[in-house]
């Protein structure tokens, strides 16, 4: 795939703190409520689970291309990047800060399975608070950008949050959706979906399909410089939250559903979208892939 020719260190393999520092202008990151403050989850000790000093999310201020931005980065390796009370409050607090500071953009580096089950009720309320805060920031005219390139991808309620943002950047190895393969198999049975079918999982939730659908805006190689450059280009490019804009998105989603609604598998969707020989898409490198899907790719209005 893209490994050997990558133009920089892997985004996927970097820690949450490293990712955010590398996306922002060098040396510009200032952390808010960092690990030395020891603001940890109050709910994990009772379950005999160790806490993390930052509750699995790094938030702070910085510059991107010289413009002031706010950024958050979830650590997917701590409890699957899942959102608990403190983790969610740090995200919501950062978005509230945006309303006062009016940065050029808010960057959300999402790497999460969704609600942290060990804090289930507090987790879902926290995700809801993040969702409302994202939309309030957008309504104030400040763009919010989701970056999805971690090993967990972006699932559950946070998969909805990603699509409440102005735009989504993904690597081809990343995944995004709402119900993940394991959850669907556990709930509906292996007849509905076989979570061990890695090729199917990849083509359903992976970056290529998400970009082809128009759910994500750009397909990036898995490198920190690629994410930085794409984020820099999108700062300041808001999708306005107006009746006209949402009616356009409504019509676009309705059209997509009419065109692709008969698809039981991503391969059917690619074929219905007009891709010749859809079976070859997973094997193509990004440039060849872009050429192959040029006429079929949907672009969110």
């Amino acid at each position: 795939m893209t490994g050997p020719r990558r133009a920089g260190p892997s985004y996927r393999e970097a820690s949450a703190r490293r990712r955010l520092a590398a996306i922002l202008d060098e040396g510009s990151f200032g952390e808010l409520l960092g690990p030395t403050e020891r603001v940890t989850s109050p709910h994990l000790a009772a379950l005999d689970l160790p806490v993390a000093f930052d509750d699995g999310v790094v938030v702070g201020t910085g510059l991107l291309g010289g413009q002031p931005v706010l950024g958050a980065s979830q650590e997917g390796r701590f409890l699957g990047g899942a959102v608990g009370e403190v983790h969610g409050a740090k995200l919501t607090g950062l978005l509230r800060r945006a309303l006062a500071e009016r940065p050029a953009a808010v960057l959300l580096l999402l790497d999460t399975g969704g609600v942290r089950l060990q804090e289930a009720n507090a987790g879902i309320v926290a995700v809801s608070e993040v969702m409302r805060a994202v939309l309030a920031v957008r309504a104030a005219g400040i763009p919010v950008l989701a970056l999805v390139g971690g090993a967990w991808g972006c699932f559950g309620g946070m998969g909805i949050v990603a699509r409440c943002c102005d735009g989504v950047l993904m690597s081809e190895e990343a995944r995004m959706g709402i119900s993940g393969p394991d959850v669907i198999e556990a709930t509906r049975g292996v007849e509905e979906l076989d979570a061990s079918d890695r090729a199917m999982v990849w083509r359903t939730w992976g970056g290529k399909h998400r970009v082809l659908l128009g759910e994500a805006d750009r397909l990036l190689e898995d490198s920190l410089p690629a994410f930085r450059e794409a984020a820099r280009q999108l700062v300041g490019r808001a999708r306005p939250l107006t009746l006209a804009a949402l009616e356009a998105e409504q019509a676009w989603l309705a059209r997509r559903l009419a065109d692709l609604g008969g698809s039981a598998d991503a391969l059917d969707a690619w074929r219905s979208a007009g891709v010749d020989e859809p079976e070859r898409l997973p094997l193509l490198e990004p440039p060849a892939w872009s050429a192959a899907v040029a006429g079929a790719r949907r672009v969110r209005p």
Partner: protein
Amino acid sequence: MEHLVFELERTPGPAPRRAAVVVGVVASGNLEVLVEAGPFPDRCRAEIQTSATGFGDIWGAVLADFAARHPVAGLSLAVNDGGATPAVVALRLGQAFEEYTGRNP
């Protein structure tokens, strides 16, 4: 969960004072180490929260060995541990010290 506190006195010398660093991540078989300036100039305080109970002696041995090899007097180490092996603990402590001392004052 087990909470352990150690004070490491047999160490080669004082550590430089730098901005705090955190290294590693809390996950199964892994740990995070937070290094910052501590309360005692002549020794290193280490505070461990671990999901694996009953390994206090091993923690004491790994930390004593680490303190004997690095000038950590004046530092405070805080660890959140998801059941890492002694080898992983030693590795992370070393990384944390390197990163801490590599920072500009």
